[in-house]
């Protein structure tokens, strides 16, 4: 890949992570929904999760005819999917959860509790890379929005290094990204998606989860290839 194409690709990766992080961070506002409705359809990628997730999310967006109604419907589904509104043992899943709480530790430990080793590990990685996530109302740093924001931050670092022609920094950053994807985001993407399927009611959020998992798989593939190329360069 030539320099120009590489920079474009990295910029796109930044944008994708930024967008995904935003979609998980909080309920969508009217403007964002309008932007999404008007956005051009994405090309098929060949990744099953991404393509089918996107098709599902797109089918929701294509059916939106009233932005205010969509805003309410999506806010309610965000609440049902990620926040839970009250505790109802009858609606809870096997682990006693009333929503698919979007924190890594919940899925890595299989328990209902937040924090612990996995969360601490995530914070360690963030700190070692000089990254401070935007926390707002989020309880812990292993929230999916923070982890995606971290990937955006790292890809942005790559972009700066590319600009300065520091290829060693680019490769080092990619290695860290891949480690984080494999060791964290991808390690809970599947169970998180299954949990959301249980609680969310709109194709938007069910599709978003599948699409996100697909995106993480695609990006890991890309990074694996990039890191392998570096191995070849070195030998």
């Amino acid at each position, binding site marked *: 890949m030539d320099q120009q194409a590489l920079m474009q690709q990295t910029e796109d990766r930044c944008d994708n992570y930024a967008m995904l992080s935003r979609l998980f961070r909080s309920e969508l506002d009217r403007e964002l929904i309008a932007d999404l409705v008007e956005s051009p359809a994405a090309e098929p990628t060949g990744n099953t999760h991404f393509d089918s997730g996107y098709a599902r999310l797109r089918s929701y967006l294509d059916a939106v005819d*009233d932005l205010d*109604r969509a805003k*309410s419907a999506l806010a*309610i589904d965000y609440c*049902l999917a990620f926040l839970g*509104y*009250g*505790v*109802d043992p009858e609606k809870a899943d096997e682990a006693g959860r009333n929503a698919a709480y979007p924190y890594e530790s919940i899925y890595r430990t299989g328990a209902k509790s937040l924090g612990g080793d996995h969360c601490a590990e995530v914070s360690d990685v963030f700190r070692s890379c000089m990254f401070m996530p935007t926390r707002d109302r989020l309880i812990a740093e292993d929230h999916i929005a923070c982890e995606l924001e971290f990937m955006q931050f790292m890809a942005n670092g790559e972009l700066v290094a590319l600009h300065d022609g520091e290829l060693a920094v680019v490769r080092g950053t990619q290695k860290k990204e891949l480690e984080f994807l494999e060791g964290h985001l991808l390690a809970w993407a599947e169970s998180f998606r299954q949990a959301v399927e249980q609680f969310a009611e709109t194709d938007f959020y069910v599709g978003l989860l599948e699409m996100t998992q697909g995106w993480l798989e695609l990006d890991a593939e890309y990074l694996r290839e990039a890191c392998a190329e570096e191995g070849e360069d070195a030998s």
Partner: protein
Amino acid sequence: MTAYGLLIDYEFCTGCQSCEVACKEIHNIPVGQWGIRVLDDGPWECSDGKFNWNKIPTPTRLCDLCVERTDKGQQPFCVHHCLAGVMQWGTVEDLAKELEEKPNQVLFVPKPYQY
């Protein structure tokens, strides 16, 4: 005899269920029983495209209006612990006046249970 009640603003109730827990604690109410219970109505869509979703804390027949506490000049335990500050205890006369000022509230006048 003066009647007392609980005025609850269900527009701003967050559904946190602290009132349920507080009540169970102070009265030692066993699992599966409640002195106040947060009922959930929704979400369902109205014809105008807006949604109805209310959490409505409802005192049960086990609510004694915390007489032991109110006799000492304290607030009922649920009122004391409501995180959103949406519960009030007082005479029906006073609470009715409050109700006139602000809609989306409900006034409960439970018959005090004998513990």
